[in-house]
């Protein structure tokens, strides 16, 4: 603060309007934050509420006290960074050491509920069309059942016998209950509303509410709680018998009937195991129940990355292509950009401005649109490239398979990326060329250097020195260039089932990781996060090299 000592005889007292502004903004922030804290308290989220109160107090202290100037400028940004970057980083870091994913989605109680929900066998008997409702009086969830046998309508709540509703107290759906019925006039209709119950649409339900409806069992025999009527698909309900019983005290599942699919037999006992699943007698090598919970798994995800045989072949392929893709992209865009920059670095060329304006167009065209446009251009049967530029027959399935086979797709990705990237290279090489002192050029000419020698021995080395950091960051950018790959090919064309992993011919590391986390059936956030951390280190290393060549670090360190 030494250099600001000067203000002690300047004006430490801000103007009146300044104070009013400050108090006004702070007042609005306080009001909004207090409301939010009230809501949090109302919902019983005490920890978050306490944290919010602490943050609010700190913010007020920062802005109301005298001095502490840096904090006043940094506070808003820091709060944002803490929530959206630091938290995100820590969460990803933590997730890398867990088995979080679609198979291990929540805590153990959720897993128990999911398992109970799925553990049943279908009994022969009456089946029903179903509508989801809520009892107006109690707010209890209930199923409105229309018998497919005689069209009588019942309503049932969890654990209670179904009650028949007299005709006139329910409304039939205008739609056919059986979508395949040929004659609409004679087809069966299902009840969708009943007096005293309000209808619930499936689309409006959150996942946990859906789980709650699928867990609902309408009793058919009060003496035997293992049998009942349940719906799994929200349109039909069947008579079922539970095959597993959960004991709250011991925390074990016991099979009370054989599983229809032969996964377990009556009498098997499943105990929670360290891998986040219920296994027979807790032995992780024995059969398990589908539906796990999130547990910490140490370095298992990293171990998978480095040792899993299923992963090895696709991973090596993806990594190789990632480097090839990033390197070739930088190389091709740089060569074309450099070529044009040299071309135009010529005083007498007319129309330079027009050329420049046209060439910058691909860069100005929004990136996502470029990808979509190229998808159309490269279409196999009717694409402009095939039918007009290459002169192939429109509509012919034997045309060049740009995005449909591995090597053509890779070529296409590089071509599109060249189109997208060369204007940038053109702009930066032009800038760098113009900053080379003209005396060097003249000196070389006097010494009798040919044009090519002048270029290769003088201009190019000078140019490379100034734009090397930009080339490196371009490499780092393309290393993670998710959108061009994903929007153009979605990483495809897909390899046909050689491994468990969803991997395609143009997948780079980041799209591959994205697929591990978000696509297909086995979404594995833990493994994807472990990959993220490794990619982070690769990019950090590349960037560090780049920074060390520039002054960026000298300024700070």
């Amino acid at each position, binding site marked *: *603060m030494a250099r600001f000592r*000067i*203000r002690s005889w*300047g*004006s430490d007292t801000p103007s009146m309007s*300044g104070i009013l502004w400050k108090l006004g903004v702070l007042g609005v922030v306080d009001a909004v934050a207090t409301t*939010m804290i009230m809501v949090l308290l109302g*919902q019983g989220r005490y920890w978050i509420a306490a944290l919010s109160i602490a943050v609010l107090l700190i913010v007020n202290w920062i802005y109301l006290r005298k001095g502490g*100037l*840096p904090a006043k*400028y940094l506070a808003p*940004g820091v709060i*944002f*960074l803490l929530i*959206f*970057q*630091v938290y995100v980083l820590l969460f*990803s870091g933590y*997730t890398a050491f867990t088995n979080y994913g679609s198979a291990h989605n929540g805590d153990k109680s959720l897993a128990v509920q999911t398992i109970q929900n799925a553990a049943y066998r279908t009994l022969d008997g009456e089946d029903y069309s179903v509508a989801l409702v809520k009892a107006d009086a109690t707010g209890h969830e209930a199923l409105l059942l229309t018998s497919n046998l005689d069209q009588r309508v019942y309503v049932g709540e969890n654990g209670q016998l179904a009650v028949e509703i007299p005709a006139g107290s329910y409304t039939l759906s205008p739609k056919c209950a059986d979508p395949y019925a040929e004659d609409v006039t004679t087809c069966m209709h299902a009840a969708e509303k009943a007096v005293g119950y309000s209808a619930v649409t499936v689309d409006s339900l959150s996942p946990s509410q859906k789980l709650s409806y699928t867990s609902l069992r309408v009793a058919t025999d009060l003496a035997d709680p293992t049998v009942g009527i349940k719906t799994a698909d929200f349109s039909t309900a069947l008579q079922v018998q539970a095959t597993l019983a959960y004991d709250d005290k011991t925390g074990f599942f016991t099979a009370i009937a054989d599983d229809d699919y032969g996964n377990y037999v009556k009498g098997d006992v499943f105990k929670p195991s360290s891998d986040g699943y219920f296994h027979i007698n807790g032995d992780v090598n024995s059969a398990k129940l589908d539906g796990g919970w999130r547990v910490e798994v140490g370095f298992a995800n990293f171990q998978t990355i480095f040792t899993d045989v299923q992963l090895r072949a696709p991973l090596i392929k993806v990594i190789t292509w990632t480097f090839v893709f990033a390197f070739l992209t930088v190389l091709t865009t740089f060569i*074309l950009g450099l070529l*044009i920059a040299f*071309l135009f670095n*010529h005083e*007498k*060329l007319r129309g330079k401005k027009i050329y420049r*304006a046209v*060439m910058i*167009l691909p860069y*100005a*065209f*929004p990136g*996502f*649109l*470029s990808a*979509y*446009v190229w998808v*159309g*251009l490269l*279409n196999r*049967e*009717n694409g402009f490239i095939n*039918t007009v530029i290459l002169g192939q027959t*429109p*509509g012919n399935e034997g045309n060049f398979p740009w995005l449909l086979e591995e090597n053509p797709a890779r070529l296409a990705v590089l071509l599109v990326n060249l189109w997208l990237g060369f204007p*940038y290279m053109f*702009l*930066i090489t032009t800038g760098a060329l*113009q*900053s080379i002192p003209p005396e060097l050029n003249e000196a070389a000419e006097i010494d009798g250097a040919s044009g090519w020698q002048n270029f290769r021995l003088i201009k190019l080395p000078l140019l490379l020195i100034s*734009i090397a*950091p*930009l080339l490196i960051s371009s490499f780092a950018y393309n290393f*993670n260039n*998710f959108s061009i790959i994903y929007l153009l090919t979605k990483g495809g064309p897909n390899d046909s089932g050689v491994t468990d992993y969803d991997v395609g011919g143009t997948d780079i590391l980041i799209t591959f990781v*994205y697929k591990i*986390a978000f696509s297909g059936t086995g979404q594995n*956030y833990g493994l994807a996060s472990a990959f993220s951390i490794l*990619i*982070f280190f690769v990019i950090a290393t590349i960037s560090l090299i780049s920074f060390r060549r520039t002054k960026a670090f000298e*300024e700070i360190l």
Partner: protein
Amino acid sequence: MTYVPSKRKFNFARWFLRTGWRHLLGLAVCVFAVFPILYILSTSLYPNNDINNTTALFTAFSPQNYIELFAQETRPFARWYTNTVYIGIVTSVGSVFLSALAAYAFSRLRFKGRRGGLLSLILMQMFPSILGLVAVFSLLSDFGQVFPIIGLNSQLGLILVYMGGALGAGTYLMYGFFNTVPKEIDEAATIDGASHARIFFSIILRLVAPVLAVQMLLSYIGVTSDYVLASILLSDPNQLTLATGLQQFINDPYSKDWSMFAAGAVLSALPSLVLFLFLQKYITSGLTGGAVKG
């Protein structure tokens, strides 16, 4: 350069070797650069009832595709457009303002943890944002359980995520620009009795206003081009942005949808193209972050 007498007879071979080939190559590259854009413009103007292929560009001109595009009830293009502009403007203004505040502190004030702060900014922006998707998704879904207005499927939530993501890089860039404003200016202002807030808002921000504008523009373009975050966080058709919405048209190239997509693409690209052409020079300097003087 060598002296060329003004009245010499025109020699084609000589001209070609000196400048002609440059025009030839320049034209070739221009064709490469512009044909996809001309193609989409041409497609958007081709009245398309049962189109299979257009083998020549600009054979017909009709506003039909544009009219049909705005008539789509399930795919509200006009809504997507305003959503995109709204999200883009709020995000770019907000993130540039927050970055400027932080950058001012880093550039002008000396405090404990300054170096550490700058270093962590650099490190944080190296983390690929796509890989934080799981965390961002679960964060917003938690928000949404208490405050639906900033939860999943809310534009405000998306804006907050964008702003949080842009802050690191933005602050670092802005820090570089603030350093180029001489410190003597603030010192003189201090002597004249200006408060720190006054120095920041009325002097520094005004001096770097062109840089702020370019940063806002780049941030706007970046945000409005984003596909991934928007596609994961927004789901209601009325909430979508252009990047996520227009994708619904491209599943079947060379169908009727494709022509409407072309019209939508032209309209979506227009602001960005115009801005770029007019602000070329400033954008170039903003891009290279001062590493190369353009």
